[in-house]
């Protein structure tokens, strides 16, 4: 079928819905491959940072400093300024829309500590994270969805987007498969927003939902748009051992500590000021180091998260969900026992490059592609640089989701629909028929497992030239094997074997850009740590990677783009200590 809207938003998480809220007078379609309330924003736990100063003195500029330093200076500083200034107003907007934040005794939004958030440029932890128990993301998603219902937003639920339509360098729509019927539909639009989230399912141990398969990134990448800083991937320090399910940093924000196999609270040894509240890249490396030094629990590859000293009341009131996770998935009682944890694949700092209005920019000269927008984890503004601070992902969604919506409102008022390209559905139909007609005998499960194992082995917290080259060769082989995947389910209706295979294709492309960026970047910065180049190298590498797709895994073209700075000397790159 053919649909025509002013705006098509792909993805119904925080960024997509926040954008939809800004377009009350436009015809808007929100496409989601799940029901909107299943979006992965709902899994965010700890909070959303904003310098409200409800608990103690705070300033957006301190928040900006923490964001820039936390990102190991790969952050575009003007974007970080917008993020932290507008966070305040955006949090109030969420409250006005009904979000049930926890409250202080005098009725204001309660705030708590979180990793890397400090007062007065690094002096000590500050209470900046606005939260709703340990289900802040759930409450943001619910609140935004409720408001979308109030505003009668048109949803297309369980539609998997397969392609971005371009005509003469301008975005003009998307093609999507209705999962329920298997039908392919064209959505013609003046403006398209990708808010499709991350690609954590490229790794075996991950906090990410099955839905996090990098769809938007891969689709843009296939259409010649570069992916930026994909080597910057965050491994969250406290995933449940072997399962990967996240135990929020809020546990450490409330006073929880990491404990090694020798019964030692080891973070104070590495980071004397912030200790367990150092940024995630650092804490994850410290855990890996402890394990290498033989300090893992029982000589194994994990350590403990210890919240016993917080007491049953604090645990029940402020950390109920993660307590439930530990009980359910490990059979561990956090009130009386420490919880086994390991780093888990968590968040893409990189993604589709955009400017501060969420417009997609396609080259080092910041040339925008008219009509194409991206916001949230799928995008790289870049406010997270080489490492995102906890709670800043939700800030990113609401601030840049909002800016995307406002800019699109202007864009659609000033522009008409660009004509569709010839045979708009041809690529998508071929993508689907290649999979449904293949008789190659391969299974998607084997390809996905091989990818995930390789990413866990070679593209994890620590990387090296040798390992990354191995990963690239493996990927090259897997892309060939992918073409031989044969499906057992030949039906059209609700064929999730088919959708899983399509998603696997997206994961392979995102992994390709990640490995290339990581291999080329011969330095260590933020989440990207090279065993063979352990120092940050500002002379050669204070720049963003842009990866352009080639015809196969080895053919990717890399380009680079300057990091944007502000004048203020406080934000000049310096050694990162906590």
């Amino acid at each position, binding site marked *: 079928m053919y649909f025509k809207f002013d705006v098509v938003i792909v993805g119904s998480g925080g960024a997509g819905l926040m954008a939809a809220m800004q377009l009350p007078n436009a015809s808007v379609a929100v496409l989601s491959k799940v029901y909107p*309330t299943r979006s992965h924003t*709902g899994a965010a736990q700890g909070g959303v940072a904003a310098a409200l100063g409800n608990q103690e003195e705070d300033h957006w500029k301190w928040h900006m400093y923490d964001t820039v330093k936390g990102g190991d200076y790969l952050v575009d500083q003007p974007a970080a300024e917008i993020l932290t200034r507008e966070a305040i107003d955006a949090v109030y907007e969420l409250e006005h829309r009904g979000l049930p934040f926890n409250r202080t005794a005098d009725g204001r939004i309660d705030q708590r500590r979180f990793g890397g958030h400090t007062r007065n440029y690094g002096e000590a932890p500050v209470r900046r994270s606005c939260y709703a128990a340990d289900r802040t993301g759930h409450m943001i998603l619910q609140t935004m969805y409720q408001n979308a*219902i109030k505003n009668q937003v048109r949803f297309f639920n369980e539609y998997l987007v397969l392609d971005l339509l371009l005509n003469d360098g301008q975005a003009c729509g998307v093609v999507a498969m209705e999962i329920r019927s298997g039908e392919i539909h064209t959505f013609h639009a003046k403006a398209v927003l990708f808010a499709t989230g991350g690609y954590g399912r490229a790794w075996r141990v991950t906090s990410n939902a099955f839905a996090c398969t990098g769809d938007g990134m891969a689709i843009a990448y296939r259409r010649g748009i570069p992916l930026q800083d994909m080597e910057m991937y965050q491994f969250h320090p406290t995933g449940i051992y072997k399962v990967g399910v996240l135990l929020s940093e809020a546990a450490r924000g409330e006073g929880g500590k990491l404990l090694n196999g020798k019964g030692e609270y080891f973070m104070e040894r590495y980071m004397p000021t912030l200790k367990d509240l150092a940024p995630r890249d650092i804490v994850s490396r410290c855990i890996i180091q402890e394990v290498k030094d033989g300090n893992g629990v029982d000589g194994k590859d994990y350590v403990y998260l210890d919240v016993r000293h917080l007491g049953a009341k604090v645990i029940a009131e402020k950390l109920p969900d993660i307590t439930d996770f530990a009980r359910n998935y490990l059979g561990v009682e956090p009130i009386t026992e420490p919880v086994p944890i390991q780093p888990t694949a968590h968040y893409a700092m990189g993604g589709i490059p955009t400017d501060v209005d969420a417009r997609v920019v396609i080259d080092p000269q910041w040339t925008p592609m008219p009509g194409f927008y991206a916001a949230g984890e799928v995008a790289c503004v870049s406010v997270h640089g080489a490492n995102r601070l906890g709670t800043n992902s939700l800030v990113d969604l609401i601030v840049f989701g909002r800016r995307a919506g406002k800019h699109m409102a202007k864009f659609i008022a000033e522009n008409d629909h660009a004509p569709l390209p010839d045979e708009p559905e041809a690529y998508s139909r071929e993508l689907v028929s290649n999979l449904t007609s293949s008789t190659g005998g391969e299974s998607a499960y084997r390809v996905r497992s091989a990818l995930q194992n390789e990413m866990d082995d070679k593209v994890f917290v620590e990387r090296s030239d040798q390992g990354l080259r191995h990963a690239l060769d493996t990927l090259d082989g897997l892309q060939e094997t992918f073409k031989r995947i044969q499906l057992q389910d030949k039906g059209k209706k609700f064929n999730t074997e088919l959708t899983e295979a399509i998603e696997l294709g997206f994961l392979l492309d995102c992994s390709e850009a990640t490995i290339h960026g990581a291999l080329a970047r011969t330095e260590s910065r933020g989440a990207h740590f090279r065993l063979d180049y352990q120092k940050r190298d500002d002379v050669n590498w204070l720049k963003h990677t842009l990866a352009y797709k080639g015809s196969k895994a080895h053919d990717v073209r890399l380009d680079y783009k300057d990091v944007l700075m502000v004048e203020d000397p406080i934000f000049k790159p310096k050694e990162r200590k906590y």
Partner: protein
Amino acid sequence: MNVLVRIKRFDPEKDKKPYWADYRVEAEPIERLLDILNIIKWTMDGSLTYRRSCAHGVCGSDAMRINGRNRLACKVLMRDVGDKVTIEPMLGFPVMKDLVVDMEAFFDKYKSVKPYLITYDSEPGTERLQSPEERARYDEGTKCILCGACTGSCPSVWGNPDWVGPASIVNAHRFIFDSRDEGGAERLGILGKRDGVWRCRTIFNCTDACPRGIPVTDLIEQVKRAIVYNDTTGN
């Protein structure tokens, strides 16, 4: 452990009616039932169809009837189901394929109770104030993930598919008792009608089914009392 997994299957493109299929799977006691469904789909029968996303009980995708009770497949561990498990789609919903049910009517009912903050005053420059006690008053309902487990477990829903059902009432409660909200009377009007709260027979299946531990029946009773006493302060 070796587990016999018995699944009610139905493919609308092939089958006239549902049938039972048996699978034998090697499972670890701490594996989730969702992990076992994945093993079956990925290594035995690619056509097995179910919804899943977060895999840890917060997205609400994988509610299904497991050994006769509605549960999330990602929150049920194999050690808790033993060596034989029976899985069906939830009752009270039209089946689309295997374990996938049609949720459209469920979300329409949810929308019918106006599940959003209604206010008539102008917004303050900062946050609206709300005491921790006022915030606690509606806390339980905010945990709802709209998985449908409560609604699909309710005999009153099975008997009358038009009934608004427990999940919608929980979400109405969440706003009726929010001190910032001014739409309480409107929602009580909707829920006081024929297909509102009064079809609830306090069977407690919903409370048993809720994967988020929400005391669903209790919240429904609170709404009933608010209608009877015309009082949304919750005292």
